[in-house]
C-alpha cells in the first residue's frame, strides 16, 4: 500500500510539472499529422499503389510508416522523458522533503524502486497512447493489422528504463537535474551511436589493438539503446535479429545501476 502511494506520487509530480502535457501535446500533433497524411495518401498514393502492387504494396507502405514512427518516438521519448524524469530525484532530495520522507516507515530501497517504476510506467503509458493510436489509425485505414509494431512500445520502454536507471544514479550522487539531463543525452545521442558504429567510425581511423579493445570494452558494458532501436526496426520489418546480446547486457547494466543507486542511498546521510 505504502509502495503504491509512492508510485502514485511520481505520477502526480510528472503531471504537476506539466512536462508531460508537452509530451501529450506533441504526441497528439503527430497522431493528427499521421491521420492527415493517411487521408491524403488513401486518396491518391495509396489507392494507386494498391491497384498497382496489391496487398503487398500496402504492407510495405505501412511498415515504412511504422519505422519512421519508431524513430520519431525514439527521439521524442528520449528527449522529453529524460528532461521530465531527471528532476524527480533531485527534487525528492531537497532538504525538508527527504527528511520527512525518510522519517516514514518506508525503506530506502522502496523509495528508489518506486521512483524507478513510477517513471517507467509513465513512459509506458505515454508510448501506449502515441504508438497505440498511430497503430489503430494505420491498421484501420490499411486493413493491415500489423502486431509487431505494438511490440515497439515495450522495446522503447526498455530503452528508457535502462537510461533512466542511470539518470537516477547520477541524480542521487550529484543532486543536479541539469547534469543528469546532459550526461544521459550525451550518452544516448553521442556515445551510444558512436559505439554502435564503432567499426565504421573509430576503428577505420585507429587500428591500435589496445584502443580497439578499450572501445569494445565500453561498448559491452554501457547500455545500448541504439542497438535496441535497431532490433525494434528489424522486428517490424521482418528482418532477422542478429543478436539479443544488446538487450541482455542493457538489462544487466540497468540492474547494476539500480543496485548501485540503492546501495548509495542506503548509506547516505540527509
Amino acid at each position: 500500500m505504502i509502495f503504491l502511494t509512492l508510485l502514485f506520487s511520481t505520477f502526480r509530480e510528472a503531471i504537476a510539472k506539466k512536462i508531460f502535457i508537452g509530451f501529450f501535446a506533441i504526441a497528439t500533433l503527430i497522431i493528427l499529422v499521421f491521420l492527415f497524411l493517411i487521408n491524403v495518401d488513401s486518396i491518391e498514393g495509396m489507392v494507386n499503389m494498391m491497384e498497382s502492387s496489391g496487398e503487398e504494396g500496402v504492407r510495405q507502405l505501412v511498415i515504412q510508416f511504422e519505422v519512421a514512427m519508431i524513430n520519431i518516438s525514439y527521439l521524442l521519448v528520449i528527449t522529453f522523458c529524460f528532461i521530465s524524469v531527471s528532476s524527480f530525484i533531485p527534487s525528492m532530495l531537497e532538504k525538508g522533503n527527504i527528511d520527512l520522507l525518510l522519517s516514514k516507515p518506508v525503506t530506502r530501497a522502496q523509495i528508489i524502486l518506486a521512483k524507478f517504476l513510477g517513471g517507467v510506467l509513465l513512459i509506458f503509458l505515454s508510448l501506449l497512447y502515441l504508438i497505440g493510436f498511430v497503430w489503430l489509425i494505420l491498421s484501420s485505414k490499411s486493413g493491415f493489422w500489423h502486431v509487431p509494431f505494438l511490440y515497439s512500445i515495450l522495446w522503447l520502454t526498455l530503452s528508457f528504463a535502462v537510461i533512466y536507471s542511470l539518470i537516477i544514479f547520477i541524480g542521487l550522487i550529484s543532486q543536479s537535474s541539469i547534469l543528469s539531463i546532459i550526461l544521459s543525452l550525451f550518452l544516448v545521442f553521442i556515445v551510444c551511436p558512436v559505439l554502435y558504429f564503432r567499426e565504421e567510425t573509430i576503428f577505420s581511423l585507429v587500428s591500435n589493438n589496445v584502443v580497439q579493445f578499450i572501445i569494445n570494452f565500453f561498448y559491452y558494458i554501457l547500455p545500448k539503446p541504439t542497438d535496441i532501436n535497431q532490433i525494434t526496426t528489424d522486428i517490424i520489418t521482418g528482418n532477422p535479429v542478429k543478436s539479443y546480446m544488446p538487450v541482455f547486457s542493457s538489462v544487466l547494466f540497468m540492474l547494476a545501476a539500480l543496485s548501485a543507486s540503492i546501495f548509495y542511498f542506503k548509506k547516505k546521510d540527509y
Partner: protein
Amino acid sequence: MNVVTTKNLSKEYSAKSFSKEKILALSNFSFEVQSGEIFGLLGPNGAGKTTLIKILLGITFPTSGDIKIFDKDISNQSYKKKVGYLPESHKFPNYLTGEQVLHFFGKLSGLSSNDVKKKSDEYLKLVDMEKWRKTKIKKYSKGMLQRLGLAQAMLNQPELIFLDEPTDGVDPIGRKEIRDILNNLKQQGTTIFLNSHLLSEVELICDRVAILNKGVLIKSGRVDDITATSDNYIFTTTDLDESVINKLLVSFKCTIKSKNEFYFNSDSVEELNKLIDFIRQNNIMIQGIAREKNTLEDMFINLIGSKN
C-alpha cells in the same frame, strides 16, 4: 519508562566533500526521554539539535553509539509508524493542496484512506487551517505551512512526536494555540520532543530540558529545578535607616538596592532567619520576601556565554 534512550551517541560530518576535516556535530551524547513528558532540547545555532533528531529518525546515521526507541533498536523501520515528525524548514511538494499533503504523508505513515480522511478533518480544524485545505500550498504563508506541518506530524496519532522549531514563523496567538495543542497531546499521553531557541516558550511547556552546545550536553534536568537554583532573596521593607543598612552590608553581606529593597544571598536557612529577626528587632516591617527565579534564558546565556 523511557521512550528514547541514547548512549554515547557521536556524529562526525566531513566538513567538505572529499576532505579529511571533520565537524563533530554530536559528542558522546547520552540522554533519555520519558514516556508522556514534553522534552525540550535547547542550544545555539549549529549545536547539533537537528542532527540528533535526524539520527533518532534514521535520516542520518550516527558515527558511534546506541539508540533505543520504544525499547527497540532503530534498525527496524516499524517504530516509525508510531512516530510523528515536523522537520525544520520543511518543504512539501508545492503542487499539492494542504489536504493532499496530509493524504500523501498519512498514507506513507501506514494509515488507511478512510483514517486519513477522518484525521485530516480533525487536525486541519485543530490547527485552524480548514478553509485552506483545497488551496495549493505554494500559496501558503510561512505560519500556515508550519500549522499544516504540525497537523501532518500528528496525523498518524503518534506515541512520540519530534518537533524541530514548531513555532518558527508563527504569530504570538498561533504560538499560544500550538502550546495548547501540545499540552493537549500530552494529556492524551503522547511523548513530545521539541527543539527550540525560544526559551521563554520552552519554559512554559517543557517538563525537562537538555542544553546542547557544540555537540556536547552541558546541562539537563527538570525545568523547575534548573530555573529555581538561585539562593538570592529579594526583600522589600519599610524605610531602612543608616545603622541598619550598615549592619546589613557588613554582617549579612547584603546588596542594597534602595531604602526599601535589598538582596540577600545565602544557602543557609538559619542565616535567612537571623536576618529576618534582626530586621524585625529594628522595627522594620517586611513587605515581601521573594526567592529570585532564574529564567531559562539567564541560565542559558550564563552557560553558553561562559563556554564560548
